[in-house]
């Protein structure tokens, strides 16, 4: 199962978070009123109706009715990812994601998938550094079926020697396949180790062969019973369903699942120190030279973060963005490049990966990138360019709730990130209110040589 593919996609709209440990946060912020209707305030700014309540066992439930099509999407997001793995057990979170399809008390192996397929539904799952998400969209009259399936694997997953063994093998195959087909994979991992401050943030979600092999059935059981509990999850239902009927079914299937103990979270770094580094990687697999360039930036959803996001659009979103024009179109310096802001729980980085035709071009491209950044330190972005960047951002933002599934993923992400949905009505404006002078100040604050991480890839 190549869930990782989707994981990459999901990352683009991962909305985590300036919260400390969400577990702790939930406890502090709660009790929510049993049913709080978030849409009351600022209704006109709120793009769609949403209600939120919590079950007795701590499961957070978000409902949003949308009757445009006879579909319903159900997302269960567990607040656990590779960040929660201990050293020596890398890959455990992803292993468990795969195991969730291997059967539970009343659902046979891979049956979850065939139940959904049979009725024309679609499903998938994804593990990131900070969350594990299961989702499906089905004809709306089949809502109960999805609850039956999801509650069964939340309640009692079959974690057996043979299931674990089989899943480990298939993941190891996947790791090997990815390594064989992506010549730059190792350099991405090496760059993560350079730019992120600790093991928790920097190790790859997919793990590595040795550590996956070392994971014992007991480890999996402990991980499951610690993190796959209702009070560590958000259930989000969006689509053509009656709110009361949905709530009745949710209580029936989920409320009797016992609450879990609150996990004592592994201590992880919550902020960056200033750091600069410049290293060279002689890659045995890579046939094209290139570089990774990164800056440690403000935490997600801090004041500067919104400005940084608009800056991302000015610099590199779309064919009329500054770096795309300079690197790709005008001077043809790079062969390929990808870049953007990446969030992992409390930390965010800005990074750029470029491949060039030869090593001289690597130098020239790098200088071109730095000169584009430097321009932004002293010259205001014109009103016209800023509006363009914001409009592109706005379109991407709006499209996050185009389908019931996207909406459900968006809502569960927002909730995991902020511990509430109350931020929603004002969120878009935080981006759209960014001014040209804010951009100058964040570029000066974060894009400096003492905060720059560079990894150059040389071919052997």
């Amino acid at each position, binding site marked *: 199962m190549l869930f990782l593919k989707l994981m990459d996609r999901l990352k683009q709209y991962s909305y985590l978070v300036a919260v400390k440990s969400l577990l702790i946060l939930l406890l502090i912020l709660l009790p929510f009123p049993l049913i709080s209707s978030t849409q009351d305030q600022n209704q006109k700014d709120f*793009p*769609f109706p949403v209600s939120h309540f919590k079950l007795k066992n701590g499961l957070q439930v978000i409902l949003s009715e*949308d*009757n*445009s*099509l*006879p*579909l319903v999407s159900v997302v269960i997001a567990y607040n656990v990812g590779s960040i929660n793995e201990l050293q020596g057990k890398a890959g455990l979170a992803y292993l468990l994601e795969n195991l969730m399809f291997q059967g539970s*008390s*009343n659902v046979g192996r891979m049956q979850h998938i*065939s*139940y959904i*397929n*049979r*009725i*024309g*539904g*679609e499903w998938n799952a994804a593990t990131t550094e900070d969350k594990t998400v299961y989702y499906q*969209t*089905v*004809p*709306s*009259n*089949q*809502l*109960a*079926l999805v609850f*039956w*399936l999801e*509650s*069964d694997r939340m*309640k009692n997953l079959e974690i057996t020697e043979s299931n674990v063994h089989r899943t480990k093998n298939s993941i190891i195959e996947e790791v090997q396949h990815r390594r064989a087909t992506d010549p730059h994979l190792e350099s991405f991992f090496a760059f993560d180790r350079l730019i992120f401050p600790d093991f928790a943030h920097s190790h790859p979600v997919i793990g590595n062969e040795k550590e996956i092999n070392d994971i014992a059935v007991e480890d999996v059981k402990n991980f499951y019973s610690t993190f796959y509990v209702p009070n560590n999850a958000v259930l989000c239902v969006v689509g*053509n369903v009656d709110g009361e*009927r949905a709530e009745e079914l949710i209580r*029936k299937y989920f409320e*009797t699942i016992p609450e879990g103990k609150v996990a004592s979270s592994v201590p992880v770094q919550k902020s960056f120190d200033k750091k600069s580094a410049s290293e060279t990687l002689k890659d045995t697999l890579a046939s094209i030279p290139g570089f990774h360039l990164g800056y440690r930036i403000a935490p997600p959803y801090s004041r500067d973060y919104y400005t940084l996001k608009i800056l991302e659009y000015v610099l590199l979103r*779309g*064919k*009329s963005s500054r770096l795309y*024009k300079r690197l790709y*179109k005008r001077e043809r310096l790079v062969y390929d490049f990808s870049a953007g802001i990446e969030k992992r729980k409390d930390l965010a980085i800005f990074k750029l990966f470029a491949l060039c035709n030869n090593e001289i071009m690597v130098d020239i491209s790098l200088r071109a990138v730095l000169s584009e950044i430097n321009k932004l330190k002293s010259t205001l972005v014109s009103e*016209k360019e800023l*509006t*363009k960047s914001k*409009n*592109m951002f*706005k*379109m991407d933002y*709006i*499209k996050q*709730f*185009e*389908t*019931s599934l996207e909406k459900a993923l968006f809502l569960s992400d927002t909730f995991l990130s902020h511990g509430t949905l109350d931020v929603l009505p004002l969120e878009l404006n935080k981006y759209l209110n960014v001014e040209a002078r804010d951009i100058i100040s964040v570029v000066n604050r974060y894009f400096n040589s003492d905060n720059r991480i560079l990894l150059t890839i040389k071919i052997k």
Partner: protein
Amino acid sequence: MKLLENKQKTSIIHKLFFFLILLTFVFPLLSQERFRKSPPYPDPLNELNLPKVESAPLSNGLNVTVARRENLPLISLQLVILAGESSSPENLPGLATFTANMISRGAVNLSSSKIEEILESIGGNFSTSTFLDYSLFTFTFLEEYLDEALEVLSKMILQPTFLKREIVNEKRNMFYSLREKGREPEFVARRQLFKLLFQNHSYQNAAYTEEVFRNISQEDIFAYYDKYYRPNIASVVLVGNLNLRIAIRKVSHYLNTWKRKELDRRFIPLPAPSSKEKICLVDLPQAKDSTIYLGNIIFPRNNQDYFPFIVLNQVLGGTTGSRLFMNLRESKGYAYFAFSEVEFFRSCGIFMLKAKVRPEVTYFSVRESLKEIEGIIKEEVSSFEVEQAKSYLIGNFPFKIDTFENSCYRISEAVAFQLPNDYWNNYYENIMLINAEKVFEVAQKYPLLTPVVIIVGDKEKIMEHLGEFEEVEIYNSKGELQYKQIKGVDK
């Protein structure tokens, strides 16, 4: 405190409490076990309520079609030109696609990068696709910029410059992207199937390779543009928060100067289906597996057999639960995947099977695939399978219209194939009317057992496993016939 003093009372309360616990926790637990044992029954199916589709023509013949969707502040627009790759001249395949791709590469007083900037300034996304019978320009933007969107669209469509410099750029683009695709076995197989099924028919144009672009000149592009980019064979389809009156006013403001020109369109007759099984190997050196595409020509899109046939297709190979997949992958272990599908055009349709298998079982996989088709023709499929297929098709349909662009596309498709405006509203009913008997009937009607069979793979690995076929035609990766092998002997 009082309670504590009265022991009697406390004990009663204890008992009561115990009973309450029993009531609230234990009893539900017992009943809970029962409902968790088996999957619940579905609720009654919810209705499909699609937005009303309305249309009206402008005075120059341009058709404007609107469907209202209110939930997001954006608009999806599609411009449909009812001329596609089959309208490319015989000696210049690829010209229709090339011309369409040039549309966003410059207009009078607008360079291609200026166009990109304008498109992005309104949060817009513009893309082009060319099919056999029509070309499609898809444009999604923030709703407050409808005027700006129509203005830039009108400049692109009415005043393209087709500059030589941009032609060179686009040639390079298309050359490399097609050469890249030419390494994908699925792409090569599909191209070869089209080439062989559509011999002596203008649909064969679609089977072009990366070499064709070098022959295209600026004059060719202008000539094609002048002939086919006409309002009387075009439609603008809009999905968003607007009605037909506003749409007509706005579209007319920007596109009413578009000049109509009658064109003499010859009717493209239905190509003759293959009447004999034909085995073709396309050599793609280094390919690991055998990729099999086999298919034949069936009826066109606008045809009453459409619904029974898509149910048939679903039973045979629509999903991982269908017969082909269950046989070739789950039971025999030959294939990584095995599916069937239908694709429709204005003059005909294609029914095809696709499978990726291990080279050493290529022959058996072709045989098993044909056996599965035979099964559906010889014996009526069970009602259970038909109902499964129907429930899948009904359940999956809304996914095809979930985004603004997807619903726009369904409407454009209906426009292109001259289906009624409310066509999709009746989808559920049309599927529900199908039964095993109707599937059986339609299975008899078309020559499904005499397909063209395309096998794409490394000749070195596959050839020795094809000896059982009577005759095999060997092609190179560009699709050119090299030689024939009869009963395992080269000719």
